[in-house]
């Protein structure tokens, strides 16, 4: 019964999306019935309730281990721990798409309920665009990916969830990333709405900004969490592999970051109007491209659950219709978007334009690198892979350049700025950067160029990112300024982590007998034993290793890497052991036992690697502070206006 109700709710939500669009269309069209638009917001909310109900019911099926539901049978197991039954709901194609549309529905309802500052017509048109997007994805679920399909007779037991996904990260990473992905649809709908009503102005930008900021915060968190998850679960010691699936999340983030900065120019200075609208379209396009890459099955990865050409074609068709439609609307209406306020090349706006150009270029390079192998294979059948060497060589230098712009932008004035004055304001960070350069060159000679530049820039730019606070009354500095400073500092911190990891990483790969001591970086690691242990749905061989730091007397660190064997499905995985210290992580992986009884051990000492994710978290928290500050100010302003009136 529960699955049928879920399916009915999904159909109802789809019907409501159609109704929502029809109401918007006849409400806004010339000679239509404007009173119809009054029903749009309630419909959007009910639609969200319906799709939310569908998701809740699918989760219920997973929690009950109802094997008569095909999806539960193929992707779950009754012996799985509670959290993986719950999170396993989206550890498969259909479930994750249902989560996708549920978030889309809730985002639409949020726009309907909480958006107050946008003018009425644009607001309604935005909800119309949102309804069209929702409808396409409902159709995708209902016609090609029904999550509630039944099996008769019901099998006694399920096939289990991919063990790589049986990790607390599954409960956090996909929903966070999806909120970010889908949140971009709101920016897209705002842009479409504003094009429809021809109201691309600062008020529109101020209304759109919190939504962009919110989506961007979640994207940042999702990518950071995904990176750390891959880092510890794969046991390869890497934190970013330039895998197409990772790129699929990075591309919307790059576009959203560009949009976040250009929307500020539009909101504050009434500049970059057409540009901002275009970026909003591009940002959601990248979310769609990401969804297509990951969900179509054209990539083989832990994220690609099913290979089914029909699904790929369906998402591709949606992508073409939405993006094509938005671009056509843009082409028709861009002439009516008046040119915004002007500015000098050397100004805050100029720096933000440079930020946007660099982000767009990085985006272009990543997009080409990601799609090129797919296109070549489709056209010529020739297989090739584009990996870290390509992306590091192209995106790396551009990102470093971007970081330099980031140091200068915030200390520049709007409209017109004196280059020398900017240089004067940045004297101290510049000095710190030079000192860092000399120190690094002396202390660690022979570093590669990219890590060296990364490290020095991280230190210099980190100092520069604090510059907007100098000489200000810190109590009267608005919260969003703190947010910006923290986010920029986070970029520098993250960059420092990346540079340290690639510059100072120490690795040891040995076959060791029990009782032997091996060295990695400043650590002596003693292999004290191996013992079998058992978990809820796995058994494992667990090694015990005790690590002592040279020149440091104290209790040794005890690490226990495991080689796990899952029962459903039968899979071997390796569970790495990580000890986090203030200045880095010791990372141990247990390999295979040799015929002569020795065990393979892989050990890394990764100095300051944790800064990478700490920086990511700072960026997200900075965004949250900015969002809080902006919302607070808007509320205060509104109250003052009310009191005045």
């Amino acid at each position, binding site marked *: 019964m529960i699955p049928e109700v879920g399916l009915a709710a999904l159909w109802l939500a789809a019907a409501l999306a159609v109704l929502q669009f029809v109401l918007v269309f006849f409400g806004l069209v010339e000679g239509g019935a404007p009173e119809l638009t009054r029903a749009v917001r309630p419909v959007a909310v009910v639609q969200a309730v319906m799709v939310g109900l569908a998701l809740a019911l699918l989760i219920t099926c997973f929690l009950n281990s109802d094997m008569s539901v095909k999806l539960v049978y193929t992707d779950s197991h009754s012996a799985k721990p509670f959290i993986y039954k719950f999170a396993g709901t989206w550890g498969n194609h259909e479930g994750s798409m249902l989560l996708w549309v549920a978030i889309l529905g809730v985002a639409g309802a949020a726009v309907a309920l909480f958006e107050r500052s946008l003018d009425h017509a644009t607001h309604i048109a935005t909800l119309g665009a949102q309804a069209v997007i929702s409808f396409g994805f409902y159709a995708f679920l209902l016609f090609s990916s029904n999550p509630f399909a039944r099996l008769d007779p019901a099998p006694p037991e399920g*096939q289990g969830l991919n063990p790589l996904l049986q990790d607390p990260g599954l409960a956090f990473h996909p929903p966070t990333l999806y909120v970010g992905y889908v949140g971009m649809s709101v920016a897209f709908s705002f842009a479409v709405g504003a094009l429809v009503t021809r109201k691309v102005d600062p008020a529109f930008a101020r209304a759109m900004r919190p939504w962009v900021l919110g989506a961007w915060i979640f994207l940042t968190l999702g990518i950071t969490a995904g990176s750390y998850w891959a880092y510890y679960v794969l046991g390869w010691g890497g934190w970013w592999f330039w895998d197409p699936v990772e790129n699929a999340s990075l591309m919307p983030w790059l576009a959203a970051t560009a949009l976040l900065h250009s929307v500020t120019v539009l909101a504050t200075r009434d500049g*970059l109007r*057409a*540009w901002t609208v275009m970026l909003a379209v591009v940002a959601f396009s990248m979310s769609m491209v990401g969804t297509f890459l990951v969900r179509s099955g054209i990539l*083989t990865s832990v994220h690609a659950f099913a*290979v089914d050409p029909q699904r790929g074609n369906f998402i591709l068709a949606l992508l073409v219709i939405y993006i094509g439609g938005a671009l056509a609307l843009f082409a028709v209406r861009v002439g009516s978007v008046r*040119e915004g306020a*002007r*500015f*000098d*090349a050397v100004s805050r706006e100029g720096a933000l*334009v440079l930020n946007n*150009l*660099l982000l*767009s*270029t*990085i*985006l*272009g*390079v990543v997009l*080409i*690198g990601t799609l*090129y*192998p797919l296109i070549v294979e489709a056209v010529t059948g*020739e*297989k*090739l*892979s*584009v*990996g870290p*060497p*390509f992306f590091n*060589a*192209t995106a790396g230098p551009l990102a470093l350049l971007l970081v330099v712009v980031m140091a200068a932008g915030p200390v520049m004035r709007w409209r017109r700025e004196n280059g020398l004055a900017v240089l004067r304001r940045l004297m101290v960070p510049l000095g710190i950067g030079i000192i860092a350069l000399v120190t690094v060159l002396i202390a660690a000679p022979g570093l590669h160029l990219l890590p060296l530049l990364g490290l020095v820039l991280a230190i210099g730019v980190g100092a520069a990112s604090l510059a907007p606070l100098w000489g200000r009354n810190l109590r009267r500095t608005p919260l969003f300024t703190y947010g910006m400073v923290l986010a920029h500092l986070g970029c520098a911190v993250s960059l420092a982590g990346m540079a340290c990891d690639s510059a100072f990483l120490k690795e040891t*790969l*040995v*076959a060791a007998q029990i009782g032997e001591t091996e060295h990695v970086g400043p650590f002596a690691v003693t292999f004290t034993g191996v013992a079998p242990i058992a978990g809820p749905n796995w058994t494992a061989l667990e090694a015990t290793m005790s690590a002592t730091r040279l020149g440091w007397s104290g209790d040794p660190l005890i690490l226990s890497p495991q080689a796990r064997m899952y029962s459903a*499905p*039968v*899979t*071997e*995985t*390796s569970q790495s052991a990580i000890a986090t210290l203030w200045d880095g992580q010791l990372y141990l*992986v247990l*390999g*295979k036992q*040799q*015929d*002569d009884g*020795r065990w*393979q051990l*892989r050990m890394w000492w990764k100095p300051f690697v944790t800064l990478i994710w700490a920086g990511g978290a700072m960026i997200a928290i900075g965004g949250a502070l900015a969002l809080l500050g902006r919302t607070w100010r808007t509320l205060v302003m509104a109250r003052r206006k009310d009191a005045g009136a």
Partner: protein
Amino acid sequence: MTPPMKARIKAKHQRLILAVLAAVAILGAVLLAMSALKDQAAYFYAPADVKRLGVALNKPVRLGGMVAAHSIVKAADGVTINFVVEDGVSAVKVRYTGITPDLFREKSGVIAEGSFIAPDQFVASTILAKHDEKYMPPQMGQKPKIGRVE
């Protein structure tokens, strides 16, 4: 030139300048990506391709095929292995230092990332064991799925 004059000329064309800059950025991205792709894209070889086309030494490539039966030989250090990748037409010797993935075994599909140090000797930096026919050379596509545990 006086600043007001300069400012006026620039202001008149500001929108045009921005559009041109955006075009330049996109074009720059395409050119940069294309030139880097020439050097950095790793081509996928099956042993038959190696025999037919020859290989460039010390360039990043991917080698894919099956691990030949009885070909895995462990070196004395306990972490280096030598094995043979074949595709029914030709075979290539591969050396790898590291922990092999769980699905890596004889008569099973494998992708090795690395480079050729001699026309018949490949040194792998990464080993990926795949259980998907997608990565098999076409003539092996008909064989049953390998390493897939149901």
